[in-house]
């Protein structure tokens, strides 16, 4: 009689132990994966930011001759590119990205005032390519923010927060667009 009860107690404790250990391992691995996914999604943004920065000198060269009255915009674009190339941290790169996106928006908007430029095939190709990169960047920023959001929710929810504290994981920052970047650019004809 007593042996039977002991066997049941042992099996129950065994299942309980296996359950707890498996659950903790799955939380642990899940959090590490989430953290790495954030790094990966940032790296995927960085690739596109670099691609776009590489296209900017060609764009500036193609519009310089036509847009003599927009030297301020072109200077801002060059500055923003330099800021991106000198940026080391993610917030610095994000700030430079916002500057580039905003200036590009202005540049493409004011290009409407220059019919000769709009007829330039090289400019049109660059505009299409850069706009394509901009669209992909928008998707990847959204993806990055979703990854950060998933991670932040996990590390603040029980029981994941216990493991997150053991790993000293803290909240990650989302990729924020500046208020300037969100505004539509007015074009004056």
């Amino acid at each position, binding site marked *: 009689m007593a042996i039977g009860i002991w066997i049941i107690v042992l099996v129950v404790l065994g299942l309980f132990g296996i359950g707890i250990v498996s659950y903790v391992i799955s939380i642990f691995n899940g959090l590490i994966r989430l953290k790495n996914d954030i790094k*990966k999604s940032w790296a995927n943004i960085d690739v596109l930011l670099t691609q776009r920065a590489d296209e900017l000198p060609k764009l500036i060269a193609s519009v310089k001759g036509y847009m003599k009255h927009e030297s301020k915009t072109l200077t801002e674009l060059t500055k923003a590119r330099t800021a991106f190339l000198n940026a080391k941290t993610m917030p610095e790169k994000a700030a430079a990205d916002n500057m580039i996106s905003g200036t590009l928006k202005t540049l493409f908007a004011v290009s409407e005032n220059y019919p000769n430029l709009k007829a330039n095939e090289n400019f049109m190709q660059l505009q299409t390519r850069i706009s394509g990169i901009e669209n992909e960047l928008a998707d990847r920023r959204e993806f990055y923010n979703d990854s950060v959001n998933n991670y932040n929710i996990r590390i603040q929810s029980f029981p994941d927060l216990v493991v997150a504290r053991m790993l000293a994981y803290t909240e990650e920052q989302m990729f924020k667009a500046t208020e300037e970047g969100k505004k539509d650019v007015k074009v004056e004809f």
Partner: protein
Amino acid sequence: MIPIHPVYLIAGFGGGIFLFIKGFFWLKKKRLIENIPTSKIRSIAMGLVEVYGEVVPWKGVLKSPFSNKECVYYKFSIQEHRRTGKHSSWVTVKTGEAGMRFYLKDNTDKVLVDPTEADVNVSQDYAFSSGFGKDPPLAIKQFLKVNNMNFESFLGLNKQMKYHEYFIAPKDKLYILGTADDNPFVKDGNSIKNAEDIMIQKGKNKEIYMISDKDEKGILRSLTWKAFGGIFGGAVLTIGSLIIILIDLKLL
């Protein structure tokens, strides 16, 4: 108390432990799906990706074997009712699948998908039962003939058989969790369209690859039930079987 054969009790104990462990695998899968955001196809990056979109044929379509519907993937099973002594059961006598590459399209772009080695979970599209006085349709008869199978017994009477078919048709909405990688069928720079440069496929490290016609919420709901059913059901089955074994052995 109705006596239970020891084989069933041992199977219950083993099956319970199996279910218990499997429950944790389902839980892990659920967490993985929850943690991966859905990518827009236009901007998918290499590696494990989750996408949702509509099926568009790539180069032609297949015909499903029983209902002859146009599709890009199908799987089927044939079951036969067999009797052995007092017992009878449905035995699966043939299963199979076939698929071809197809595009998945969302509101941003389209990407090529190779369903080979995917865990395809789609709802049943066609089912038919043949039996006494009920012949299978012509398409099934032809399929059976090609595969050297017969729906009639040696006495000329129809066997009791069931035919199930699952397929992915053009315009079906699919959820895919798989690896985006270079398309091994095109050389760099030789691709006609960019949409063919990258292909969603089984990862080289055999990562998870699933295709489902449910949306993410539906998949998560089903995995939650499976995980908790597996963990708690498995534990109850294990302990219940153990208690009866111990009673039979007079240890309780």
